[in-house]
């Protein structure tokens, strides 16, 4: 287990500050990082080393909490505690601010692009989730303000292939939304976590959703369509979501992030105990009641809380992580034999 997650490189990405989040571009060649120093840095390889290719220092007045690349890879969105979301267009050597999305009453906690590239979602401490539409002229329009959560919304993520949106909140729930007759509605609420849900990740098929929480567990939820074989009840035409697995007893502090590798299915977690863990689903387990085993555990991956883990979308086993210590680390993961 010790050799299955090996450190490749470590960079002081946001010195004297904390690094909050990381995002790989769709081509897997660039990594964007953002942090408490209000900056966004873009990292790429030069030979064997990871170096900083660009810095975006203007744009936000406060912490940049998350960044997200558009599916085409030409745009980067950044969500900030200054209550705005900036959209940056990638030019040859630089990034140019295309527009600033305003409207949230306070800190924006997350931003995510839908797979189609035409929709963007943001969420905030103001308890709302906003859906934005973007047209060919780079014009952004808010098409829906969803007020389903009763507290601070921490994270939003889109389904890999459908126009289905998921959100995680300080109110201990996960909510799902879809478009119904020209309006966005909340179509499911997933209850079970006993504290703040910090992050979410869909599996490659989009049939399952992983959530991680301050309650120190990871929960796996599965979508059941109306008329399903397993006899799981659905209300009307909306699918039902059921918790099919809970990973407990592995993490000793808050789990801040979970990432599901779209290439291999491995599940990585970022924890407040400074560790990174990777789980693999047991191949012989029942799909309706899967079991996961701990495949790798890097106990002191960072010297402080790990805030984010991100699998490279093109290179299997390449994992990036970042921490309150301001550093970004790159890891090579290899599934242990016999697992």
């Amino acid at each position: 287990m010790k050799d299955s997650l090996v450190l490749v490189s470590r960079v002081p990405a946001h010195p004297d500050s904390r690094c909050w989040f990381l995002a790989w571009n769709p081509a897997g060649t660039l990594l964007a990082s953002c942090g408490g120093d209000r900056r966004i840095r873009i990292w790429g390889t030069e030979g064997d080393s990871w170096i900083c290719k660009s810095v975006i220092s203007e744009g936000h007045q406060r912490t940049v909490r998350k960044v997200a690349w558009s599916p085409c890879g030409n745009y980067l969105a950044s969500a900030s505690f200054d209550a705005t979301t900036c959209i940056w267009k990638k030019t040859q050597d630089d990034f140019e601010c295309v527009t600033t999305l305003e409207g949230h009453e306070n800190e924006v906690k997350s931003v995510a692009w839908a797979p189609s590239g035409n929709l963007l979602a943001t969420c905030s401490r103001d308890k709302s989730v906003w859906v934005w539409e973007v047209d060919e002229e780079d014009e952004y329009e808010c098409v829906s303000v969803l007020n389903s959560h009763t507290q601070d919304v921490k994270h939003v993520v889109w389904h890999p292939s459908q126009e289905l949106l998921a959100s995680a909140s300080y109110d201990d729930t996960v909510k799902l939304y879809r478009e119904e007759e020209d309006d966005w509605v909340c179509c499911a609420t997933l209850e079970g976590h006993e504290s703040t849900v910090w992050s979410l990740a869909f599996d490659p098929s989009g049939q399952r959703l992983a959530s991680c929480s301050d309650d120190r567990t990871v929960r796996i939820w599965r979508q059941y369509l109306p008329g399903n074989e397993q006899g799981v009840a659905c209300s009307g035409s909306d699918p039902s979501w059921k918790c099919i697995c809970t990973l407990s007893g592995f993490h000793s502090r808050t789990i801040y992030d979970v990432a599901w590798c779209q290439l291999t299915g491995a599940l990585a977690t970022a924890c407040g105990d400074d560790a990174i863990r990777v789980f693999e689903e047991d191949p012989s387990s029942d799909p309706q009641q899967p079991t996961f085993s701990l495949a790798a555990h890097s106990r002191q991956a960072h010297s402080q809380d790990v805030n984010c883990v991100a699998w490279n979308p093109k290179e299997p086993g390449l994992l990036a992580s970042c921490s309150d210590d301001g550093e970004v680390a790159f890891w090579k993961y290899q599934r242990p034999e016999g697992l």
Partner: protein
Amino acid sequence: MERVLGLLSSTLSRALWSSGLSEQGAARQPRIMEEKALEVYDLIRTIRDPEKPNTLEELEVVTESCVEVQEINEEDYLVIIRFTPTVPHCSLATLIGLCLRVKLQRCLPFKHKLEIYISEGTHSTEEDINKQINDKERVAAAMENPNLREIVEQCVLEPD
């Protein structure tokens, strides 16, 4: 007076231990935890109350016994503080929690994880307050609010 005696007894037990007259291993742990707890208390007792011209120690918002230190592993400790707000005012309690966190984050020299709670039964919305002051994202955002930051800075300023 109590504190002087506390220090005296820890010096004494250290002297006994190094001279081989005291039990090692099991006896060492509690002594280290006590010393660490004292280090923490020394930093928080001088924090000023946001409203009154007194320190948290003077108002008995914090006491020596309200600090608990546990060893997580070598060189890493879990610090737990249970404080008693003077009035059941939500925002004040949150503010005190913020001051405690900021002071220790900046000044505590050893590697630690910090949990801050309102001592049980002292507040009607204690669960809500505890959740907020232990949410590091909420704390970070609050400290970027210039007004809030100014108040916290005034409270944690070291006395001359």
